């Protein structure tokens, strides 16, 4: 008796998404609770999955009870289960947060919004959980379409940003599909495990090489790896704040997950390391991403845009970890999937809350904010410290493993990039923190103004998710050793 949780965690959000329309048509207010219920159930299912994986090992779930190369199979190993829990939890947190912000930003579209929101989450979960190349494509498209729509309803520039995203996303998806096609032509199979068995004989085949190249480019587009990131800043800047908070942590991470999956469990690691120098190229691209993202972020005056560029840089960290192609590097990359999800979640939630309360997002307008929204800004500071990599926040530990990996691989340039980038992040974030916390002298002469500015903290439904995310940042920092020893060390492919 196989556990049903792997399929339930995808199907529950799907079914609830379908239910949202009728229920929302009946009573508009029902959408929010429906979403919460769906995502909590999904989260529980993913926890159950993770638990099962840890206790009994990899789960194979045959959909429709057809055995693998013929039917579609869900394969949940440690890596999957880990990412699943992240995705479902982050989306649950964002869903809790969404209530007020959606009511303010999109009062007319609540029903459709929650419907697409659930579809988006289901798509992301479906990408992660599947063990079939084509099924991955289908869910990739669900997630992408939902993403385009969610981004397009943002503020002024959103439709155009979303259109650009659509173009690049479609190119990415098409390339992925082409890759699947090329692999199918040369092997005749779509199942990942099956491909893993068949492919080694074909590593010299040009078809397979080209397929691999297209996978890389396609996934790179989806995860916004450096030269292919062009769509990202605009899209995440203009999207509604809830959407940015959902997509920024998850979309790129899921892309990164797909990359790891294809590189190391569809193809053999030695293929990407020795036969063709993919990892080296990936490493250099990632290094470029890290620096470019940080430098571009420096040039921004808009807080949300700055975060978007930081996201580019953070994606670089994950890719760098993959590119190092050793145990420590990959551990760092997988750990960074978790950490970065929470960091980006916290940052984008905070920006959303700030915009909700004050409508401001230029860095120079943030003055007095620490008095108006003390908890929100405290969360921002902690998340910022984590991005910089100050212990004991979680960002430090992924950086630790990445540097460890880089030293292990004797890639001194990467070490330098990692170190320099954290300094750049210091400049980035302390610029914001200075604006938010430190005020010019003359305005508070005599210290009497302490109580003059009243606290206007974000509403509780927004504050609680922010605090959860922040707590996550701290807790995962301290627990990183535990997480690695229980999950991540099994998620790294055996041969490292």
């Amino acid at each position, binding site marked *: 008796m196989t556990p049903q949780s792997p399929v339930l965690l995808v199907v529950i959000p799907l079914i609830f998404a379908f239910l949202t329309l009728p229920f929302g048509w009946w009573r508009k207010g029902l959408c929010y609770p429906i979403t919460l219920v769906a995502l909590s159930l999904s989260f529980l299912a993913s926890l159950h999955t993770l638990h099962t994986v840890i206790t009994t090992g990899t789960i194979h779930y045959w959909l429709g009870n057809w055995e693998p190369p013929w039917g579609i199979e869900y394969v949940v190993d440690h890596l999957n289960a880990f990412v699943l829990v992240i995705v479902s939890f982050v989306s649950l947190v964002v869903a809790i947060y969404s209530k007020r912000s959606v009511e303010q930003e999109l009062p007319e579209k609540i029903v459709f919004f929650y419907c697409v929101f659930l579809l988006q989450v289901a798509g992301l979960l479906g990408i992660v959980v599947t063990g079939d190349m084509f099924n991955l494509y289908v869910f990739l498209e669900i997630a992408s379409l939902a993403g385009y729509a969610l981004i397009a309803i943002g503020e002024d520039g959103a439709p155009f940003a979303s259109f650009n995203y659509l173009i690049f996303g479609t190119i990415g998806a098409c390339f992925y599909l082409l890759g699947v096609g090329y692999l199918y032509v040369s092997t005749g199979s779509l199942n990942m495990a099956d491909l893993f068995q068949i492919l080694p004989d074909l590593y010299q085949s040009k078809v397979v090489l080209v397929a691999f190249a297209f996978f890389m480019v396609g996934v790179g587009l989806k995860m916004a790896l450096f030269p292919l990131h062009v769509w990202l800043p605009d899209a995440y800047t203009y999207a509604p704040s809830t959407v940015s908070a959902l997509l920024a942590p998850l979309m790129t991470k899921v892309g990164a997950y797909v990359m790891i999956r294809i590189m190391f469990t569809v193809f053999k690691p030695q293929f990407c390391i020795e036969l063709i120098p993919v990892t080296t190229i990936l490493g250099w691209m990632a290094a470029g991403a890290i620096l470019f993202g940080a430098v571009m972020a420096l040039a921004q005056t808009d807080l949300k845009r700055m975060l978007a560029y930081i996201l580019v840089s953070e994606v670089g960290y994950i890719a760098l970890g993959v590119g190092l192609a050793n145990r420590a590097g990959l551990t760092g990359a997988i750990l960074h999937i978790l950490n970065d999800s929470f960091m980006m979640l916290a940052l984008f939630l905070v920006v959303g809350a700030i915009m909700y309360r004050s409508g401001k997002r230029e860095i120079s307008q943030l003055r007095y904010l620490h008095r108006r929204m003390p908890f929100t800004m405290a969360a921002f500071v902690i998340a910022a410290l984590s991005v910089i990599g100050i212990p004991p926040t979680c960002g430090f530990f992924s950086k630790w493993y990445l540097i460890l990996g880089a030293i292990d691989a004797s890639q001194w340039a990467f070490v330098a990039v990692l*170190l320099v980038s954290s300094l750049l992040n210091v400049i980035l974030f*302390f610029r914001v923190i200075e604006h938010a916390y*430190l005020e010019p002298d003359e305005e*508070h002469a005599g210290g009497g103004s*302490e109580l003059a500015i009243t606290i206007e903290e974000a509403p509780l439904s927004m504050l609680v998710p922010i605090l959860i995310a922040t707590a996550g940042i701290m807790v995962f920092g301290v627990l990183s*050793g535990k997480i690695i020893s229980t999950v991540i060390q099994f998620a790294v492919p055996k041969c490292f």
Partner: protein
Amino acid sequence: METIESIRPLLAVLVTLIGALLIVFTGERHRNLREFWTILVSVLKFVIVISMVPFVLEGRVLEYTIITLTQGVSLQFRVDQFGLFFGVLASALWIATSIYSIGYVRGLNEHAQTRYFFNFALCLSATMGIAFAGNLLTLFIFYEILTVSTYPLVAHKETEDAIMGGRKYLAYTLIAGVVILFAIIFIYTLTGTLDFKPGGFLLGRGQSTTLIFLFALLILGFGVKAALMPMHEWLPTAMVAPTPVSALLHAVAVVKAGVFGCLRIILYVFGPELLHNLDLWLILAYFAAFTVIVSGMYALAQDNLKRRLAFSTINNLAIIVMGAALLTPGAITGSIFHMGSHGFMKITLFFVAGAIYVKTHKENISELDGLGRQMPLTMGAFTIGAMGVAGTPPICGFISKWYLAMGCLEAKQVIFLLVLLISALMDVAYFFPIIYNSFFKIPKEAINPHLDEAPAMMVVPLVITAVISLILGIFPNAFFHFFNLASTAAAKILGGM
């Protein structure tokens, strides 16, 4: 060496953290309660730290592992003699500082007091973590927390200068942090462990060039906070901070943490034997000696009192590093003990500077003429502190300098003895005029001839610290067993050779 599992070090760190949270949640509305938390926590902490002294003096080590961070490295506290020495010093001085801060902040009616106290508590928590850290990673974690939590204190005044000072501080220390991080990870890849061991654990690992490189990086990294000479630039700039912060920076937490880090590196990571083998000790000692001389000269040139004190601090810290670099029992004992004695003396001096500022809003030395008559207690304490720093018996500075001098002789390096003497002369040269002018010189403009001390909350701590430094000079083991701790630590380090 006996190891005891004990939660006390964790408690010592946590108690301030909880205090910090209590301070935040109490907030601006209930000032008295908030200040009560500060003092309560500082006293509690001191009690906890002192309660560990008997165990450690018996040669046992208190250990507490919180959680495994990565293979072979845990978030771990281990209290040995050296760590406890620093812990006792910091927690003792914190009581004084917190009382003094309350007086100072209220006296000036500062803004954002909650933030101030919160960061202060956080800072001390981190310092305690540094003191009790059982391995390099734990040390580094708390080191970074210290950096970050000190930043708001440095930039507290929020003027252009303060913000610039804060930026500079942050830039220096975080770059240093990055350098240290790199070195630590490198060491981890070499050895797979980061636990401190008296006498070092790097012996026989890695090539000598790599090790030299690592040593340079680490000393460079920790040297920034210890304000060794080419990296000292941030320290005088950070003087824009409120005086208790300066006191904290210079006497208790930050720079001491830097020196503590340096000493940990020298004595517990690399170890005397390795340093001898690589001939690094001599280079480091010369390097420190250079700092001693140059910073003394700088100090002479300053007119701002706090800046002069800052350079004096740099001077003394360099002496500590120099002592440790000599690697003889006397020198190590002396330099460890000097950490403590310098702490008490220098905090007195800063308290005095703050008291003067609160009372008269004067910062420059040239304006202090005749102040001794107005504030005799304050200036008396200043005199004790200054003389102590110069090494006059029977103040505690004498004992440490004596042992340092002995150490120089043991190492057969007369040149460092000379450096010590020159620095003592310089100390006299830059402190004596202040004392003289304040007591004996007739001021140009009329000043209040009556007794007019700063608030009691400020005067009491500074008098107490002055008295303690006096008592320590006579009974080095009074109250805290400082001397015992220092000498046993030295013995153990060299015993591990």
